[in-house]
Protein backbone atom coordinates (compact mmCIF):
# COMPACT_ATOMS: atom_id res chain seq x y z
CA UNK A 1 0.00 0.00 0.00
CA UNK A 2 2.28 2.73 -1.22
CA UNK A 3 0.23 4.75 -3.67
CA UNK A 4 0.21 8.37 -2.64
CA UNK A 5 -3.56 8.55 -2.21
CA UNK A 6 -3.63 5.63 0.22
CA UNK A 7 -0.72 7.06 2.22
CA UNK A 8 -2.26 10.52 2.47
CA UNK A 9 -5.67 9.07 3.25
CA UNK A 10 -4.28 6.83 5.95
CA UNK A 11 -2.45 9.65 7.71
CA UNK A 12 -5.37 12.07 7.42
CA UNK A 13 -7.93 9.55 8.66
CA UNK A 14 -5.79 8.26 11.51
CA UNK A 15 -5.03 11.83 12.54
CA UNK A 16 -8.75 12.61 12.47
CA UNK A 17 -9.61 9.52 14.51
CA UNK A 18 -6.90 9.91 17.15
CA UNK A 19 -7.39 13.68 17.39
CA UNK A 20 -11.12 13.31 17.85
CA UNK A 21 -10.52 10.61 20.47
CA UNK A 22 -8.18 12.91 22.37
CA UNK A 23 -10.73 15.71 22.19
CA UNK A 24 -13.35 13.37 23.67
CA UNK A 25 -11.03 13.07 26.64
CA UNK A 26 -10.07 16.73 26.83
CA UNK A 27 -13.26 18.65 26.09
CA UNK A 28 -14.96 20.20 29.09
CA UNK A 29 -18.50 19.79 27.82
CA UNK A 30 -20.21 16.42 27.58
CA UNK A 31 -22.15 17.33 24.42
CA UNK A 32 -18.93 18.34 22.70
CA UNK A 33 -17.54 14.96 23.71
CA UNK A 34 -20.47 13.25 21.97
CA UNK A 35 -19.79 15.25 18.79
CA UNK A 36 -16.11 14.32 18.88
CA UNK A 37 -16.85 10.65 19.45
CA UNK A 38 -19.10 10.69 16.36
CA UNK A 39 -16.20 12.28 14.44
CA UNK A 40 -13.90 9.50 15.67
CA UNK A 41 -16.42 6.87 14.47
CA UNK A 42 -16.50 8.48 11.01
CA UNK A 43 -12.71 8.60 10.81
CA UNK A 44 -12.61 4.95 11.79
CA UNK A 45 -15.07 4.15 8.98
CA UNK A 46 -12.67 5.87 6.58
CA UNK A 47 -9.83 3.70 7.86
CA UNK A 48 -12.01 0.65 7.19
CA UNK A 49 -12.42 1.83 3.61
CA UNK A 50 -8.64 1.99 3.18
CA UNK A 51 -8.59 -1.67 4.30
CA UNK A 52 -10.98 -2.64 1.46
CA UNK A 53 -13.71 -3.41 4.01
CA UNK A 54 -16.61 -1.79 2.16
CA UNK A 55 -19.51 -3.50 3.94
CA UNK A 56 -18.05 -2.98 7.41
CA UNK A 57 -17.36 0.68 6.68
CA UNK A 58 -20.97 1.30 5.69
CA UNK A 59 -22.21 -0.68 8.71
CA UNK A 60 -19.92 1.37 10.92
CA UNK A 61 -21.43 4.61 9.70
CA UNK A 62 -24.98 3.26 9.99
CA UNK A 63 -24.62 1.67 13.42
CA UNK A 64 -22.06 3.80 15.22
CA UNK A 65 -22.37 7.23 13.65
CA UNK A 66 -26.12 6.70 13.23
CA UNK A 67 -27.70 4.59 15.93
CA UNK A 68 -25.27 4.57 18.84
CA UNK A 69 -24.59 8.30 18.60
CA UNK A 70 -28.34 8.96 18.71
CA UNK A 71 -28.53 6.76 21.80
CA UNK A 72 -25.69 8.75 23.38
CA UNK A 73 -27.40 12.06 22.65
CA UNK A 74 -30.66 10.65 24.05
CA UNK A 75 -28.88 9.55 27.22
CA UNK A 76 -27.31 12.98 27.66
CA UNK A 77 -30.64 14.73 27.08
CA UNK A 78 -32.61 12.40 29.38
CA UNK A 79 -30.38 13.21 32.35
CA UNK A 80 -31.00 16.96 32.48
CA UNK A 81 -29.94 17.68 36.06
CA UNK A 82 -26.75 15.64 35.89
CA UNK A 83 -23.56 17.61 35.42
CA UNK A 84 -22.89 18.72 31.86
CA UNK A 85 -19.17 19.13 32.30
CA UNK A 86 -16.84 16.21 31.76
CA UNK A 87 -14.79 15.86 34.94
CA UNK A 88 -12.10 13.32 35.70
CA UNK A 89 -12.24 11.14 38.76
CA UNK A 90 -9.44 10.30 41.17
CA UNK A 91 -8.34 7.46 38.90
CA UNK A 92 -7.44 9.80 36.04
CA UNK A 93 -3.61 9.60 36.38
CA UNK A 94 -3.72 5.81 36.59
CA UNK A 95 -6.10 5.63 33.64
CA UNK A 96 -3.92 7.89 31.49
CA UNK A 97 -0.83 5.88 32.41
CA UNK A 98 -2.51 2.57 31.54
CA UNK A 99 -3.79 4.00 28.27
CA UNK A 100 -0.38 5.38 27.30
CA UNK A 101 1.28 2.12 28.25
CA UNK A 102 -1.10 0.05 26.20
CA UNK A 103 -0.85 2.34 23.17
CA UNK A 104 2.95 2.31 23.36
CA UNK A 105 3.10 -1.46 23.74
CA UNK A 106 0.72 -2.06 20.85
CA UNK A 107 2.54 0.39 18.59
CA UNK A 108 5.93 -1.12 19.48
CA UNK A 109 4.80 -4.69 18.85
CA UNK A 110 3.02 -3.71 15.65
CA UNK A 111 6.07 -1.96 14.27
CA UNK A 112 8.66 -4.52 15.32
CA UNK A 113 7.14 -7.93 14.61
CA UNK A 114 7.31 -9.26 11.05
CA UNK A 115 3.72 -9.72 9.93
CA UNK A 116 2.34 -11.18 6.73
CA UNK A 117 1.99 -8.34 4.25
CA UNK A 118 -0.33 -9.01 1.35
CA UNK A 119 -0.23 -6.18 -1.15
CA UNK A 120 -2.92 -4.83 -3.41
CA UNK A 121 -1.59 -6.83 -6.35
CA UNK A 122 -2.01 -10.02 -4.30
CA UNK A 123 -5.65 -9.13 -3.84
CA UNK A 124 -6.02 -8.51 -7.54
CA UNK A 125 -4.42 -11.90 -8.26
CA UNK A 126 -7.11 -13.51 -6.10
CA UNK A 127 -9.75 -11.74 -8.23
CA UNK A 128 -11.02 -9.81 -5.20
CA UNK A 129 -14.05 -7.72 -6.08
CA UNK A 130 -15.96 -6.99 -2.90
CA UNK A 131 -16.70 -8.37 0.52
CA UNK A 132 -20.50 -8.33 0.69
CA UNK A 133 -21.17 -11.59 -1.16
CA UNK A 134 -18.59 -13.51 0.83
CA UNK A 135 -19.70 -12.10 4.20
CA UNK A 136 -23.31 -12.95 3.41
CA UNK A 137 -22.60 -16.53 2.48
CA UNK A 138 -20.46 -16.98 5.60
CA UNK A 139 -23.11 -15.50 7.89
CA UNK A 140 -25.72 -17.90 6.54
CA UNK A 141 -23.30 -20.82 6.15
CA UNK A 142 -20.41 -21.42 8.52
CA UNK A 143 -21.53 -18.85 11.08
CA UNK A 144 -25.28 -19.46 10.93
CA UNK A 145 -25.56 -20.42 14.61
CA UNK A 146 -23.69 -17.35 15.97
CA UNK A 147 -25.76 -15.25 13.59
CA UNK A 148 -29.01 -16.54 15.10
CA UNK A 149 -27.59 -16.17 18.60
CA UNK A 150 -26.74 -12.54 17.79
CA UNK A 151 -30.36 -11.92 16.88
CA UNK A 152 -31.46 -13.46 20.19
CA UNK A 153 -28.95 -11.22 21.99
CA UNK A 154 -30.32 -8.14 20.26
CA UNK A 155 -33.88 -9.14 21.17
CA UNK A 156 -32.88 -9.70 24.80
CA UNK A 157 -31.12 -6.34 24.99
CA UNK A 158 -34.12 -4.65 23.36
CA UNK A 159 -36.63 -6.16 25.78
CA UNK A 160 -34.29 -5.55 28.71
CA UNK A 161 -33.85 -1.90 27.85
CA UNK A 162 -37.63 -1.41 27.58
CA UNK A 163 -38.26 -3.27 30.83
CA UNK A 164 -35.62 -1.26 32.67
CA UNK A 165 -36.89 2.19 31.82
CA UNK A 166 -40.62 1.41 31.89
CA UNK A 167 -42.58 3.47 34.38
CA UNK A 168 -44.34 1.24 36.90
CA UNK A 169 -48.07 1.64 36.55
CA UNK A 170 -49.97 0.97 39.75
Amino acid at each position, binding site marked *: *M*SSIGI*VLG*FYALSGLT*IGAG*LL*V*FLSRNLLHSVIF*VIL*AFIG*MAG*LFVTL*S*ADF*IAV*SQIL*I*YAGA*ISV*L*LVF*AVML*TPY*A*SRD*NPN*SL*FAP*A*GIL*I*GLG*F*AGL*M*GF*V*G*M*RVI*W*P*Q*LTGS*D*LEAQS*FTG*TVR*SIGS*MLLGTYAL*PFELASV*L*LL*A*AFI*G*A*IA*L*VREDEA
Partner: protein
Amino acid sequence: MNPLVIGIGHYLAVSGAVFGIGIAIALSKRNAIAVLMGIELMLNAVNLAFLTFSRFGSAFGSEPTAPLAGHVFVVFVLTVAAAEAAAALAMAVLVYRRRETVDLDRINLMRW
Protein backbone atom coordinates in the same frame (compact mmCIF):
# COMPACT_ATOMS: atom_id res chain seq x y z
CA MET B 1 9.63 1.05 8.89
CA ASN B 2 9.19 3.25 5.89
CA PRO B 3 6.56 5.85 6.71
CA LEU B 4 5.55 6.08 3.07
CA VAL B 5 4.62 2.41 2.71
CA ILE B 6 1.59 1.80 4.88
CA GLY B 7 1.80 -1.66 6.40
CA ILE B 8 0.15 -3.68 9.09
CA GLY B 9 2.25 -2.00 11.79
CA HIS B 10 0.84 1.44 11.04
CA TYR B 11 -2.72 0.22 11.38
CA LEU B 12 -1.90 -1.66 14.58
CA ALA B 13 -0.32 1.48 16.01
CA VAL B 14 -3.47 3.49 15.25
CA SER B 15 -5.59 0.73 16.73
CA GLY B 16 -3.47 0.68 19.89
CA ALA B 17 -3.62 4.46 20.18
CA VAL B 18 -7.42 4.53 19.92
CA PHE B 19 -7.68 1.63 22.37
CA GLY B 20 -5.42 3.48 24.81
CA ILE B 21 -7.54 6.63 24.53
CA GLY B 22 -10.61 4.47 25.17
CA ILE B 23 -9.02 2.93 28.29
CA ALA B 24 -8.04 6.37 29.59
CA ILE B 25 -11.57 7.71 29.05
CA ALA B 26 -13.28 4.66 30.55
CA LEU B 27 -11.08 4.67 33.64
CA SER B 28 -10.90 8.36 34.37
CA LYS B 29 -14.24 9.92 33.49
CA ARG B 30 -16.78 10.51 36.19
CA ASN B 31 -19.91 10.65 34.05
CA ALA B 32 -21.32 7.22 33.17
CA ILE B 33 -22.14 8.28 29.61
CA ALA B 34 -18.56 9.43 29.04
CA VAL B 35 -17.34 6.05 30.30
CA LEU B 36 -19.62 4.41 27.75
CA MET B 37 -18.06 6.52 25.00
CA GLY B 38 -14.64 5.22 26.03
CA ILE B 39 -15.86 1.64 25.81
CA GLU B 40 -17.26 2.26 22.32
CA LEU B 41 -13.89 3.66 21.23
CA MET B 42 -12.17 0.53 22.55
CA LEU B 43 -14.55 -1.71 20.58
CA ASN B 44 -13.84 0.36 17.48
CA ALA B 45 -10.10 -0.11 17.93
CA VAL B 46 -10.58 -3.87 18.21
CA ASN B 47 -12.59 -3.81 14.98
CA LEU B 48 -9.75 -1.98 13.27
CA ALA B 49 -7.26 -4.63 14.41
CA PHE B 50 -9.55 -7.42 13.15
CA LEU B 51 -9.89 -5.81 9.73
CA THR B 52 -6.15 -5.12 9.56
CA PHE B 53 -5.23 -8.74 10.12
CA SER B 54 -7.94 -9.82 7.71
CA ARG B 55 -6.62 -7.51 5.01
CA PHE B 56 -2.89 -8.19 5.38
CA GLY B 57 -3.01 -11.76 6.67
CA SER B 58 -5.53 -14.31 5.53
CA ALA B 59 -7.04 -11.65 3.32
CA PHE B 60 -9.58 -12.36 0.69
CA GLY B 61 -8.21 -15.60 -0.70
CA SER B 62 -10.58 -18.50 -1.14
CA GLU B 63 -8.17 -21.28 -0.12
CA PRO B 64 -6.99 -22.50 2.33
CA THR B 65 -7.65 -19.87 4.98
CA ALA B 66 -11.18 -18.86 5.74
CA PRO B 67 -11.96 -15.86 3.57
CA LEU B 68 -13.09 -12.80 5.45
CA ALA B 69 -13.55 -14.51 8.80
CA GLY B 70 -12.29 -11.31 10.41
CA HIS B 71 -15.05 -9.34 8.74
CA VAL B 72 -17.68 -11.72 10.14
CA PHE B 73 -16.20 -11.29 13.61
CA VAL B 74 -16.48 -7.53 13.18
CA VAL B 75 -20.16 -7.92 12.31
CA PHE B 76 -20.69 -9.75 15.59
CA VAL B 77 -18.71 -7.15 17.51
CA LEU B 78 -20.93 -4.44 16.00
CA THR B 79 -24.02 -6.38 17.09
CA VAL B 80 -22.78 -6.82 20.64
CA ALA B 81 -21.74 -3.16 20.80
CA ALA B 82 -25.22 -2.04 19.77
CA ALA B 83 -26.89 -4.32 22.34
CA GLU B 84 -24.47 -3.18 25.04
CA ALA B 85 -25.03 0.49 24.27
CA ALA B 86 -28.81 0.10 24.44
CA ALA B 87 -28.73 -1.79 27.74
CA ALA B 88 -26.12 0.47 29.36
CA LEU B 89 -27.92 3.67 28.39
CA ALA B 90 -31.19 2.27 29.74
CA MET B 91 -29.37 1.57 33.00
CA ALA B 92 -27.96 5.11 33.03
CA VAL B 93 -31.44 6.57 32.61
CA LEU B 94 -32.78 4.27 35.33
CA VAL B 95 -30.04 5.24 37.78
CA TYR B 96 -30.65 8.89 36.97
CA ARG B 97 -34.35 8.49 37.67
CA ARG B 98 -33.65 6.97 41.09
CA ARG B 99 -30.71 9.11 42.21
CA GLU B 100 -30.76 12.30 40.10
CA THR B 101 -27.18 11.72 38.99
CA VAL B 102 -25.07 9.60 36.63
CA ASP B 103 -21.91 10.56 38.48
CA LEU B 104 -20.05 7.30 39.09
CA ASP B 105 -18.39 8.64 42.24
CA ARG B 106 -21.79 9.22 43.78
CA ILE B 107 -23.33 5.88 42.82
CA ASN B 108 -21.94 4.12 45.86
CA LEU B 109 -24.94 2.17 47.10
CA MET B 110 -22.99 -1.10 47.01
CA ARG B 111 -19.90 0.28 48.71
CA TRP B 112 -18.81 -2.01 51.51
